[in-house]
Every structure is written in structure tokens, then in C-alpha cells.
């Protein structure tokens, strides 16, 4: 932090200084409870300070900053983006640095502005819908810096490229998978009732987009499959997530549930495991949690998409100023197919899934987003 401060000292803008001091004060205050704030994990390549303030990327080298508006170690979203950055460093030879913003959302705007204003980086990678306004504002004020934004769309700002993962397409796969499982006769835990479950975190648009895709997928496989939906009301109450899952299994005879409720969804998976039926994980590969019960997980491939964006940028082909929805075709979403998937899912279902994925990639099936 001391190093960062001295660099800022040299800058002319007093306002930046003020912002920096404020952010330091906030970060220090936040350090009281958790001392993992603004720890910067520096990749070896970034240690030599490249101070080409020009910011020209065409032909020039990429010096990227990844701002985490939380902390690394979530085993999901942010770690996945970090993996994409690491791969870009290795394969594209770019320079990169990661700054962790910590849990306090009040720090994020000033924290990101401080690193952007230092003009040490010509590319900024940042994500999640909570950062939209901050990113838009900064992009307009620092037009020579390129922004790569993931997990939501920002359109009409010439130096921002944004990408959104099509959770409806991913959930379509999950829904088709669930319908195949519930109509399957080989699987021990599957019952004759054509009912599949969905446990969402909250009744909000993004979760309902998952739900809508899931329903479309289930209906594609079999029109008679009924989808039972419940919402936990938050994303942390694992006991409640479990209770809802159990209710779907016991009272509605669901034999596979899709838990889209972050940590609370883990309770749902546990409930399915206890009753000897099946479940689908989300966000990260949750197949190893309850092997044989969690048959697959729906993933957002943040790492691949971040790498892809950086690769396009290096080639000078990145469509800056626009936003893209990454679906199956672009590899933005998909199901987790590890050894456990191969082992526990019958061949017939795996073949059928491959067929559906191909059709989605070719555009023979279109999934409607509810957003």
C-alpha cells in the first residue's frame, strides 16, 4: 500500500489524492475485521512497472489490471476469472496485476478509481452487475483505458467490451438433463412421476432467467415434465434450502432438483443426497460434493471468456463499445462433465445431451431469455 501511495504522490491531481486517502482510510477501517483487503497478488511479469501512459493497445503491449470486487478464494466466479488472467499471462505474454477490493462495497468505487487513475494499466478487467455504474463512469472519464467487463452488459461506451453469460441457455441444458433423468428407467433414484425441482435463492429477474431456461429445457425433452419451484428468500440459509428440497422430493415426488441459491443451494444438494435422489449444482463444479447424487453442475465459464476477450484484444479484434451474450456456442456456459459425470450418468443420457448441445450451438434450438 505504501508503494501505491508514493506513486500517487507524484500525480498532479489533488482530487485523486483525496480519493486515495479516503479509500485508504476505508480499507484500513475494514481491515479491523478482515485483514485480507487490497492484498495484491502480483504476477512476476508485472513487477517491472511499465509506465507507458499512452494506453494504445493496437500493437502495444497489454498491461492488464483485474479488479476483484470481493476477495479471491470463492472457488467460483472470481477465481475463475483469475484463472483466465493467469492463462493469458502464460499464453499471450501480457502483463497483469490483481487487486482485491474486499467485502465492503463502499470501497469498490474509490478503490477501482485509484488504480485506474494511476495510468499504469491500459486494460482493466472487472465484473458483476454491482460494478456497472462505477465502470461506466470511469470509462467515460478515462477514455484511453480499455475495459473488459464480465457478467453483465454495458453498451454504448466506446472503450468498454462487456459479456454476459447466457444463464438461460445453460439452464436449458440443466432442464433437459433433469427431464432426461426423471424419465429415465436405468437410474435407481428416479421415480415414475415426471416431476423435477428448482430451488432458487430469491424471486428476482436473474434467478427467474435460470428458471425460465430450466423450464424450456425440461419441456423440450418431454412436454409432460412438471417443474416445481421454491425460493429460499436469501442465499445463505442452508437449512431452509434443504427443507425446501426435501419438501419437493417428499411431497411432490421430484427426483432431481436444481439448486440455484449459492450457499443455500448446498443445503438443497444435501437434502437430495439424503433422500437418495439426484441434483444439479450451479456456478462451480459441485459434482464431487455428493458423488452419485450431484450428477452435473451448470457452469459459467468465466475463465475461458476472459481469456478469449484478452486474446481478441491482443489481435486487435475485440469489438469494443459493444456487449455480447455468451452462450453454448461461444463456450460461455455449459455443464460440468468430469469423471463423475462419465461414471454416474447413463450413456443414453450423455448421448442425448451431446445432441442437444450441438443443436443449441448450431442455433437449431433457440432459448428465450426472460430478462
Amino acid at each position, binding site marked *: 500500500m505504501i508503494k501505491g501511495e508514493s506513486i500517487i504522490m507524484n500525480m498532479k491531481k489533488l482530487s485523486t489524492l483525496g480519493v486515495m486517502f479516503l479509500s485508504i482510510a476505508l480499507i484500513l477501517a475494514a481491515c479491523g*475485521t478482515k485483514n485480507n483487503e487490497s492484498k495484491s497478488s502480483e504476477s512476476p511479469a508485472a513487477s517491472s512497472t511499465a509506465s507507458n501512459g499512452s494506453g494504445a493497445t493496437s500493437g502495444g503491449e497489454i498491461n492488464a489490471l483485474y479488479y476483484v470486487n470481493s476477495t479471491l478464494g470463492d472457488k467460483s466466479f472470481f477465481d475463475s476469472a483469475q484463472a483466465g488472467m493467469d492463462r493469458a499471462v502464460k499464453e499471450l505474454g501480457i502483463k497483469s496485476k490483481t487487486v482485491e477490493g474486499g467485502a465492503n462495497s463502499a470501497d469498490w468505487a474509490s478503490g477501482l478509481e485509484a488504480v485506474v487513475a494511476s495510468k499504469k494499466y491500459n486494460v482493466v478487467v472487472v465484473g458483476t452487475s454491482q460494478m456497472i455504474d462505477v465502470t461506466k463512469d470511469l470509462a467515460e472519464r478515462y477514455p484511453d483505458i480499455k475495459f473488459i467487463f464480465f457478467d453483465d452488459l454495458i453498451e454504448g461506451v466506446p472503450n468498454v467490451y462487456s459479456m454476459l453469460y447466457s444463464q438461460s441457455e445453460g439452464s436449458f441444458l440443466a432442464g433437459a438433463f433433469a427431464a432426461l433423468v426423471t424419465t429415465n428407467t436405468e437410474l435407481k433414484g428416479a421415480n415414475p412421476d415426471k416431476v423435477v425441482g428448482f430451488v432458487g435463492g430469491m*424471486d428476482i429477474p436473474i434467478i427467474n432467467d435460470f428458471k425460465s431456461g430450466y423450464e424450456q429445457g425440461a419441456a423440450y425433452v418431454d412436454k409432460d415434465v412438471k417443474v*416445481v419451484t421454491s425460493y429460499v428468500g436469501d442465499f445463505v440459509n442452508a437449512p431452509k434450502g*434443504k427443507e425446501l428440497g426435501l419438501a419437493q422430493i417428499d*411431497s411432490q415426488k421430484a427426483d432431481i432438483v436444481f439448486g440455484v441459491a449459492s*450457499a*443455500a443451494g448446498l*443445503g438443497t444438494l444435501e437434502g437430495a443426497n439424503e433422500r437418495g435422489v439426484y441434483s444439479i449444482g450451479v456456478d462451480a463444479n459441485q459434482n464431487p*460434493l455428493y458423488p452419485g447424487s450431484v450428477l452435473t453442475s451448470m457452469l459459467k465459464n468465466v475463465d475461458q471468456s476472459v481469456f478469449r476477450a484478452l486474446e481478441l484484444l491482443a489481435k486487435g479484434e475485440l469489438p469494443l463499445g459493444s456487449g455480447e451474450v455468451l452462450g453454448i456456442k461461444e463456450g460461455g456456459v455449459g455443464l460440468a462433465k468430469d469423471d463423475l459425470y462419465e461414471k454416474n450418468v447413463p450413456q443414453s443420457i450423455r448421448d442425448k445431451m451431446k445432441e442437444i448441445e450441438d443443436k443449441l450451438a448450431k442455433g437449431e434450438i433457440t432459448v428465450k431469455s426472460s430478462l
Partner: protein
Amino acid sequence: MVWQTIWSQIIDLSLFAVLLRVMTPILLAALGGLISDIGGAINIGLEGLMLMSAFTSIAVGSSTGNWALGVLAGVGVSVLISYGMGFFSLKMKVDIIITGFAVNIFGSGFTIFLMSKIFGVTGNYSPSKAAPIPTVNIPFIEDVPLLGKLLSGHNLMVWIAILAVVFCMVLIYRTPYGVHLRSVGEAPQAAQSLGIPVTRIQYSALAWSGVFAGLAGAFMSNGLTNMFVKDMTGGTGFLALAVVLLGNRNPIGILFGSLIFGLASALATIVQTVPDAPIPSQFIQMIPYVVTIAALVFFAMRQKRKLATLT
């Protein structure tokens, strides 16, 4: 369709099982809140104590393979923090509400910190070999059609919670300690003048609240589920404080208060899973809270009428 489902759940008693599961942590935590409340040292840190206990009990339980050790460790940690609360509020004269808030924030942050330091995970910890609190299957009775489902197959902690109600009844109303506790809560100066050690009694009241909050927390991580998720108590500690008032500050009332809330939650769970339910999910999620408020109003009105007839 909705009524039909609810009815079939009542008939086969699965609603009853859900009700008991949902009720238990609230009941235990509320009993903890009750004793500290009666002793005049109201403990609003129940949520934080539960989180600490939930984490400790699953961590110790899964690493030793013994659920009893896990529960004991969880309760121990909870009591220890309660003593810490006592030190700050009774000795150092920090406002007890602020101390309680501090414990809540501490519990949330420190469990996340420990989780990442000890197990290297963030967000949630699910041990591969958990040692869950066992369910009690009563021989012979479990084979009797109706009675079996009514009495057998419940988690041990459900029974402990019901026994705890009896225990609190005896402790508060039938022992010298209970008399001291109540007098300290009602009029500390008067109690002091009679030679009752006020501070020591309040320390012990906080410790009792630690015991019950600890049991509640251990049940959430080690009985209801077999995992720890950050902030997994999800407001149960605060709900318990409301139940203390709903239960008119006595153990039997608290049992009924928890039953009302548990029943409403269990119903909400079942209604939610009915496909194509005509009611928006937000309304269903409101049921437990609306019922609690309605019950509070009802009891308050009855109380008022009772007072009016007395005068």
C-alpha cells in the same frame, strides 16, 4: 390443489416432522434469550453465539468423528463468549445492546476468517465425514402406525429442546437461583440490598443464554444440515428475541411461540412447492412473519383486556 397437498401432509404427519425441525433452533435460542432477559442482561448477541457454536461444533465434530464432542465444544465456545460479553457489559460497563451487536458482527466475521484459515475454504465448509447428531428411533413405538411417526425418528436435539423447556420452568420458578434471577432482573438495587450477588447472577444468566444459543447453533450445522455456510443462521437469533416477547417471557409461552412460528414456516415451505400455486412467492415467504405479528397483537390485546378486568 394447495389445500389438498397441505391436508395430505398433515395426515401423514410429515408436516409435523418439518415443524419440529424448524422449531427446535428457534426454541433453544429463545430459551437462552429468556434467561438473560429475566436476569436483566438482555442478550441480543444470540445470532453471533449461534454462528460461533455452529462452526465450532461441525469443525470439532467432523475432525474427531464424535458429534457429542462437537456439540460440547460448540456450547463451550458460546458460553465463553457469553462470559466475555459479561466482562465488557457488567465489569467494563459497556452498554449491553452494543456488546450484543459486537458479538453478532464478530460471529459472522470470525467464522468466515477461521473457515479460510483452518480449512482453506470461503463461503462454506462441508466435511467429507461428518458426525451428525443422531436421530432417536424408539424401539417398538416406531412400528406403531400413528404413534411411531409422532414420537420416533426425531433428532436428539428436538428432545433436548423440549426437555430444556421443562428445565427452564424448574430453574426459573422452582429454585432459589430462579428467585434471585427474577429479583435481579426486576429490581437490581433491591436485590443488592438483600445481599444477592447481582453481578454474579447476571454473569450466570448470560452463561445460560450461551448454553442454549450454543445448542441451537450446533443443531443448525450438525443436525439440520451437515455443513457450515457463512451466516447460515439467517436471522434465527433475532427471531428468537421476538419469540421471547411473543411467549410472554415464560418457557411455556415460548414453546407455543416457537410452535406457531414453526408451523407457519413449515406451511410456507409446503405451499411453496405446490406447482402453479396462484400466490406469488413473496407472499408465501411472508407467512411466518405475518403470523408472528398477528399472534403478538392478539396476545397483547388479551393482556390488555385482562388488565382492564382486574382494575
